């Protein structure tokens, strides 16, 4: 196992992230509401650097009685990361594409130990 201590948990903004690279492997580590999530920095669409794009809350449409649209709003809870190549948006908590849950980022193990964020990096070539 290739475990990396990438720094103290308190040093992460919330929401925030750090994208790290070691031996050619890139991983995005995210902090949302005090929890950490990590994914390989490879978009399942075309291989773009999905973790290095804009973090933005999911867009939702409010529907009232009788199916009447009341317009677009930002989610108060679901934060996405957007692949900067083509705009694929992934829920940071699940790694799943917001429009097709079968399209997802590859998860990477991350934990907080003694106040530090520890990432288990995938082996090179994976």
């Amino acid at each position: 196992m290739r475990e990396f201590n990438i720094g103290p948990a308190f040093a992460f903004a919330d929401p925030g992230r750090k994208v790290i690279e070691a031996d050619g492997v890139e991983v995005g580590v995210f902090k949302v509401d005090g929890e950490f999530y990590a994914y390989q920095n490879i978009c399942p669409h075309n291989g773009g650097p999905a973790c290095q794009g804009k973090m933005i809350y999911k867009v939702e449409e409010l529907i009232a009685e009788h199916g009447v649209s009341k317009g677009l709003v930002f989610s108060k809870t679901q934060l996405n990361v957007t692949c900067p190549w083509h705009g694929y948006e992934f829920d940071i908590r699940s790694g799943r594409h917001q429009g097709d849950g079968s399209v997802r980022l590859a998860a990477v193990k991350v934990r907080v130990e003694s106040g530090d964020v520890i990432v288990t990096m995938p082996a090179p070539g994976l």
Partner: protein
Amino acid sequence: MHEPVNRPFRELQEITLQTDTRDILSHETKRAIDREDYFLVDIDAHVSETQFWPEIIGSIDNEVIRQWGQAGMERGSSAALLNLSAGTNYQDVYGRILHQSALRQAVDPAAGHRFTQMARRSMDAMGLDYQVVFPTPMLLLGMHPQDEVEVALAGAYNRWVSERILPEDPRLKGLLFLPFNTPEACEELVQKYAGDPNIIGFTIASTRNKPVHHNAYMKLYAMIEETGKPLAFHSGFNWDDPSFRQLNRFISMHSISFVHWSLIHMTNWIINGLPERFPKLKLIWVESGLAWIPFLMQRLDHEYLMRSCEAPLLKKLPSDYMRDMYYATQPMERSNPRLLQATFEAVNAETQFLFASDWPHWDFDPPSAITDIPFLSEQAKRNILGLNAARLFNLEVKKMRPKAADALSTRPGVS
């Protein structure tokens, strides 16, 4: 229990407007290591010409129209003289795809024109030997209410790209931009640039309401046929069209509008027998994706067999003429692999498809979009990625790019 180790790692920055193209595309550069022996031609990439608008406005021949443009720029307009369509600023998905918004990376002031340097970075990063460049907002000039402005800007752009940009890098090529609303001006431009070796074809921006079979264009087509260089229809969008104004989201309009123009011009081209009138004129259809092609083939064949009296010049099925034409692959719809494979088979993709990136636009395709197609043979991939273009544009098949490993090592590497 494993003890976490303070191993060395590098931190990568968020992709921003200032990120170097080589960093944005570094993942594709890594993929390019596996295709070092491929010959790659990107037949559709773009200049964001408004970044260099003072240079282009300054190249306008007509002194009054030049003053109109300069006066607009002096008052702060970054798109003086242009007829930007509604939605133009939505293309970057509201700030999510920043290479569409703008490329504001630093360049070396002593290393040539800013555009040339950025284009070279994209070529090196994607592993391209040649790149054919088109303008961007100028592709909507066919809808400009003033034909004289289309003529003025076409002349200025052609001069700028042929004199200032293309001579700086032998890997960059251009297609002449035709002010199609004024056939006589197109003829003058064809005559002027037909012998320019860096101008390897001609472009009609498809977003316009001009029937391509009108007799006013026959002399122009004959002249282009005589040059032996191909004619490209480069599609675009127009949200101002009455039908399209019903569509309330950019995705809806954009998904249909590009295809709409290709459907209309292709239909007119074939039903009026232009392939029979200009049998040596080679046509390329750019930036409508691929899914529209088998649809139109079937639709026209079906009706032609019942109403062939309306298309008396045809000597074979409409789909047979379409099969003789060339198609740029981007944006390649690929959510259904079986439909994609059927499309490739319907159009003789191995000889007729041409790889196009559309870089730096929001829906660009990298070369790996082609190499990742599971049903294509190795030879088909090589043809589509470069050898078909070499044959069509008469390009020497020769490695013009640095090795991918060298391209990776020279990037800034901060993102």
